[in-house]
């Protein structure tokens, strides 16, 4: 089975470059620079040093004993929550920022929903001395005040997005518009495996360190490969990061857990979920052909999830392809399952997971048989950022 072809702009019928002509040249320059740098020993050395000494890699693979006992199987957690910044986002951001520097860019722009990618971008901008501006929907700014403050503290400027639904998808639109006029000095630091080529490929490769480590760690611990690897999917960067280590291990089941939100139906403008792999249809969003949430005329719907990082009406094109060819199994965990995962993991293991990662945990709690005898859950982030959301949800007035 031919899963992906690194030299191509497409993954089966998904992917591509559905962008204005103005962006074709910047994308070409980026693809060429990245293609050159990723095999350059000096670049690799610099990235690897930052990943170890600044970000804290490798992250542990932790056998969750109490969770394993509860589920009657061995469940390991890949601890991306321990990465600097509290989520896997930094892996991608460090790589892209080094590419930007090598290309002579002096400014970074990024989009953010929950603020995790924005915070990671702001950290790297500060660390590497690049001006950083982060587009963030007005609605998200209101929901994630603490992360807005973190970004500002790190020296970045947060630009409120007032167009459209004023959330993540509109922040991406605005970043693409900015880039169309600023690419000569500016790199667009996209946070996930979505968007036009080369982003899905580049972000997956920069995140693949998760899967490479996890595969080696599980072989050391168990002497064999896991039966299943589960990860939550919004755009899909943490999932593609860990899955990429196991794509060729066809006996290992790869489970993509999407946000079931508050139900599987869709209103006129807003869907009740963010489950594009499960419930989406073919369409073009943010420059790629993929599975998206849309109305009968092709207008993009707003998605919904309690986890802001899964609240996106599109998904990475490579994941759409991997689901179509049967290599990745799509699954759903709704808000309730995620909250269950959030509180159970806290109590069982003393680890408060991000609400995003809690979807994968919640799925495991509800469907332990899907994990086989040995499984890895990618714990993509820590939950400190979500305390206010969860308190609000419990009626405790977190904000």
């Amino acid at each position: 089975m031919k899963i992906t072809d690194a030299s191509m702009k497409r993954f089966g019928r998904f992917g591509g470059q559905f962008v204005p002509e103005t962006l074709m040249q910047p994308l070409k320059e980026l693809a060429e620079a990245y293609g050159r740098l990723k095999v350059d020993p000096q670049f690799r050395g610099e990235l690897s040093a930052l990943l170890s000494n600044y970000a804290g890699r490798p992250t542990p693979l932790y056998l969750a004993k109490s969770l394993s006992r509860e589920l009657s199987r061995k469940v390991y957690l890949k601890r991306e929550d321990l990465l600097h910044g509290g989520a896997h986002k930094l892996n991608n951001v460090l790589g892209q920022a080094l590419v930007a520097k090598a290309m002579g860019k002096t400014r970074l722009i990024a989009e953010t929903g929950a603020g995790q990618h924005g915070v990671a971008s702001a950290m790297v901008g500060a660390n590497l001395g690049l001006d950083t501006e982060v587009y963030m929907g007005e609605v998200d700014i209101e929901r994630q005040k603490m992360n807005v403050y973190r970004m500002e503290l790190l020296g970045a400027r947060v630009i409120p997005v007032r167009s459209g639904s004023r959330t993540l998808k509109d922040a991406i639109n605005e970043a693409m518009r900015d880039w169309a006029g600023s690419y000569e000095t500016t790199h667009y630091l996209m946070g996930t495996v979505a968007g036009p080529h080369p982003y899905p490929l580049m972000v997956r490769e920069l995140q693949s360190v998760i899967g490479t480590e996890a595969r080696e760690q599980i072989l050391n611990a168990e002497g064999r490969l896991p039966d299943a690897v589960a990860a939550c999917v919004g755009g899909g960067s943490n999932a593609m990061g860990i899955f990429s280590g196991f794509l060729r291990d066809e006996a290992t089941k790869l489970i993509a857990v999407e946000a079931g939100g508050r139900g599987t139906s869709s209103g006129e403008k807003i869907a009740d979920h963010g489950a594009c792999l499960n419930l989406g249809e073919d369409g073009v969003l943010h420059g790629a052909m993929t599975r998206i949430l849309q109305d009968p005329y092709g207008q993009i719907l707003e998605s919904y999830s309690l986890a802001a990082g899964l609240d996106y009406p599109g998904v990475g094109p490579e994941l759409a392809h991997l689901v179509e060819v049967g290599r990745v199994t799509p699954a759903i965990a709704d808000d309730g399952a995620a909250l269950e995962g959030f509180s159970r993991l806290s109590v069982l293991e003393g680890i408060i997971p991000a609400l995003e990662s809690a979807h994968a945990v919640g799925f495991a709690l509800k469907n332990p048989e899907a994990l086989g005898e040995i499984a890895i859950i990618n714990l993509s982030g820590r939950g400190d950022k979500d305390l206010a959301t969860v308190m609000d949800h419990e009626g405790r007035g977190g904000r």
Partner: protein
Amino acid sequence: MRLAEAFERRPLLIAYICAGDPRPRATVEIAELLARAGADVVELGLPHSDPIADGPVIQAAAQRAIEAGMNTDVYFEAASKIRANVPLVFMGYYNMIFRRGLDRFAKDCADSGITGLIVPDLPPEEAGPLRAACRKAGVDLISLIAPNTPIERIPLIAENSSGFLYLVARSGVTGARADLQESTKALIERVKTPLPKAVGFGISTPEQAAEVIRAGADAAIVGSACVDLISRGDLAGLEELIRGMKAAIGEARPI
């Protein structure tokens, strides 16, 4: 009227409006007003929820239009009601076309009197299937060239275009701009093609329209300036703008 026929009387003025703004019912009247005032081609934008090539003025118009009930069915119905002896051109984003089905969309264009399509997020590398559908339906698919399009890429775009070539006057998104860049003139000279060249993005005054015609363009495209006047309910101002632009380009290069 076909685009080729219209371009026999160059220089042309092409005017863009966002269909459905402020109300779906206003579109026919506004399109006819544009033609009456001197627009030689009317570009009818189909509003999209995520218009990545557009600046704030057209974004806001699209949002108003969608909220007022504009959709692809209403769009074609409006287009078919427009009585004006000028070509109508569709402008809109690829997902709206893909969602309806490429063949069906191209046929709906032909059936409702639309003679060409401009799709700003569809570079030639991705345009093959729609090009085939357009050819089958007998409508033009117009390609765009940007200021940063490398010279060696121009033939690929030009050879894949029909009707005319849309030269994007500046990088960034749609919207009015005070100055016309020197690079626009260079762009017009750089693009060698037997197709007519129409220049758009940032043209909002008669002087700017005249300037691109003097620089060698066959048509000037005005978009955000029209949409801005419509958003303020100033149809008299819109008529005046179009008359002024038409007169200015006529003087710039007498027919």
